[in-house]
């Protein structure tokens, strides 16, 4: 407990034994912008601990540029305007060199204007809806083409699903993802009447009717599959209702984009065995480096803690940043950004992540089946897929592309050959 609370303290400083001073201002400061209270604390506290662990590990290796790394932790308290306020505070008052932070899209969009105004640098670790590429953000989570599209392909090709229920929580990530999927499914010849869409509020608990609606789709004579972008707590009621209705994964498979090891720890998974989740990382990935990572995490945070996809994203992001700073010889944002392009770092699941000039990573797409112990059996793993900031499946964004290296623009219209804007779309 004392250890945990100490780590949760707002300014956790890890000072290393004296290191030779370079031109660099010591110590190197890393800002952590994750909610430690409020509704999102459930997911974000873990990421704060992850960054602190990575900082500790790096300091044990001798710090960065001969300086110790100091983590500056602030609490935006799941209050979106506070993300802007705290980002400004981190960049101007604490003068951090980089920020690791945000979970929800709205929190990222809140911090974006500040990052762009003050030329900060942020690593965003969560899968998101795409349609954005900021000069000042590196997206280490999955873009839709690295999670949603491969999962739908899996449904179409491997499971032979013909009728789709897209269930989501009513906010931007499910909305945009479902819009992309709707367009994608139609391009694959799925008729409009075979796509059922439903949106529910955050924390929704009354799932009986919706589950019944999904089951009733089976009467159409086509194999039904559910694509779930249901977020957070609401999943628990949903899966409980699914289990009560006796929906087996063989009859109606459910693939979830927001359900990972952390979320499953809130319910009994025996009835859910076989349902699916699509991520770029599962704790059950059987590789040497992942075993080491899981071990380090359990030693750091507690034996019963699990690892998940956004944690891997921070792991890759942090290490890439460290390498980029070393390569650039400075923490100056513009220099680091240039050094980031093309950075390579091994994924925990095997293969290599490469930072693309559109500020997204190449990542393998994994599909896992839920096991009775709350972990996932990886049943499909693709080659690394390059992240696409602007989806090809929506007419408005199809002509857009992002290339900060050669085009110097995050929202470049390839038809008119112009840069739509230098700031991003918030």
């Amino acid at each position, binding site marked *: 407990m004392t250890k945990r609370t100490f780590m949760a303290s707002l300014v956790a400083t890890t000072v290393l034994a004296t290191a030779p001073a370079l031109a660099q201002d010591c110590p190197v400061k890393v800002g952590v912008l994750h909610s430690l209270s409020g509704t999102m604390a459930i997911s974000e506290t873990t990421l704060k601990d992850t960054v602190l662990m990575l900082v500790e590990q790096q300091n044990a290796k001798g710090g960065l540029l001969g300086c110790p790394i100091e983590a500056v932790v602030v609490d935006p308290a799941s209050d979106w305007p506070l993300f802007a306020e705290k980002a400004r505070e981190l960049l101007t008052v604490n003068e951090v060199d980089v920020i690791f932070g945000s979970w929800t899209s709205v929190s990222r969009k809140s911090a974006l204007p500040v990052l762009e105004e003050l030329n900060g640098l942020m690593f965003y670790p969560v899968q998101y809806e795409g349609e954005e590429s900021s000069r000042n953000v590196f997206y280490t989570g999955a873009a839709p083409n690295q999670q949603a599209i491969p999962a739908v392909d899996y449904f179409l090709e491997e499971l032979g699903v013909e009728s789709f229920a897209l269930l989501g929580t*009513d*906010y931007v990530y499910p909305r945009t993802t479902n819009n992309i999927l709707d367009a994608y499914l139609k391009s694959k010849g799925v008729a409009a009447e075979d796509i059922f869409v439903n949106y529910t509020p955050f924390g929704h608990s009354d799932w009986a009717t919706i589950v019944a609606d999904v089951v009733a789709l089976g009467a159409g004579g086509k194999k039904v599959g559910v694509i779930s972008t249901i977020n957070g707590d609401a999943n628990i009621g949903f899966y409980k209702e699914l289990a009560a209705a006796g929906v087996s994964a063989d009859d109606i498979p459910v693939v979830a984009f927001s359900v990972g090891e952390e979320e499953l720890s809130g319910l009994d998974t025996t009835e859910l065995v076989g349902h699916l989740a699509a991520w770029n990382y599962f704790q059950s990935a059987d590789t040497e480096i992942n075993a080491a990572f899981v071990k380090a995490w359990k030693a750091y945070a507690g034996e019963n803690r699990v690892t998940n996809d956004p944690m891997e994203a921070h792991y890759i992001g942090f290490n890439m940043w460290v390498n980029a700073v070393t390569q650039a010889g400075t923490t100056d944002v513009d220099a680091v950004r240039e050094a980031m392009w093309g950075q390579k770092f091994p994924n925990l699941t095997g293969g290599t992540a490469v930072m693309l000039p559109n500020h997204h990573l190449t990542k393998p797409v994994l599909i896992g089946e839920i096991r009775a112990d709350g972990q996932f059996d990886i049943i499909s793993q693709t080659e690394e897929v390059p992240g696409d900031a602007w989806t090809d499946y929506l007419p408005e964004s199809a002509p857009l592309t992002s290339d900060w290296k050669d085009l110097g623009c995050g929202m470049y219209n390839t038809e008119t050959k112009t840069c739509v804007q230098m700031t991003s779309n918030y």
Partner: protein
Amino acid sequence: MSTPEIAPRRRFLAENPSVLWFLGCLALFTLGVTVLSEGFGLALISTSMVKILGMTLCLCLIAVAMDVVWGYCGILSLGHFAFFGLGGYAIGMWLMYARTQGIVVESLSATPIPPTDIEIEKAIASQIFGVVGSNELPWLWGFAHSLTLQLMMVVLVPGLLALVFGWLAFRSRVTGVYLSILTQAMTLALSLYLFQNDTGLRGNNGLSGLQNIPGLDHVPQSALSLWFFWASALALGLGYLVFAWLVSGKFGSVIRAIRDNEARVRFLGYDVESYKLMIFTLTAVVSAIAGALYYPQAGIINPAEIAPIASIYLAVWVAIGGRGRLYGAVIGAAVVSLASSWFTGGGAPNINLGFYTINWTDWWLVLLGLGFVAVTLFFPRGIGGLFDMIVRKP
């Protein structure tokens, strides 16, 4: 020289020295912050702090409005933050539209053929709503191109909502806790409505990037933050003056009488419902103005801001500050919101009890909740009450 027109005003200020005191303090505070600020002075107060202080002034303004409607008129409205949010949305729509228009016009100017108005509008819509998967400008945004119209919306939309809601509720003689629950239901309905993506205000994402004022790209945020700080201070000063004047005269006596015994006032021949409606609507409009000043400083507005709990917190500030005295509301709002950000922002040192470390991020809300119970039980007159005791003792 005293003419009849200014005579009552002089008497009002003479009878209410606290108003002058308050305005003096506010002016001094504004001057102090300006001198110490990054934008125009010694750079001892960071821009983010100036923004926090400016936002706090807006919260003080809505607290004053809340004090009038609750502390003076006895209507415990749990819906004033909805009006605050609506004001923010109204100004936010213009801010977003105009900023996006600038971006779009600039990017389209590079095309060989100049764009038509329809093309510009479509491009704006897909820029704003691309995030939520739409590319059409909803009808709600019909006035968003014009600052003047949208400023009118800041006043009209919340004003009209308050008028209609108040008219219905007061006409049906819904009073006391029922009215509180009803206003809370209204707030909940509004926030659920705004949460929907289909309603045309970008759902859960809300409106963002509001700190970038269109046409003022060249002005640094350190200066902009001060401008808004001054505007907030001015609004608070004016609002305070207007409300203080309103509650000090005969009108004030009537609404206080309504608070204390509604039936008796009605039997005396006063049209109680009209008085209540007037106060309810007026405070709603002031709340909306406070919101319109607040959100450009906060940078983003979304439905979570309007959630019912925000309005309850508002009542909490007023109660802690002390109801029935306007400076009490200001003190309550300022103290609680600044203390909140101090405690959750890591300003307060952790307390090590040996066996357990009290981390204020985790324990601040427990302290606030219990502190609030204590204030209700032991200091029903709030911090303002303590102030009164000190001032009147000698």
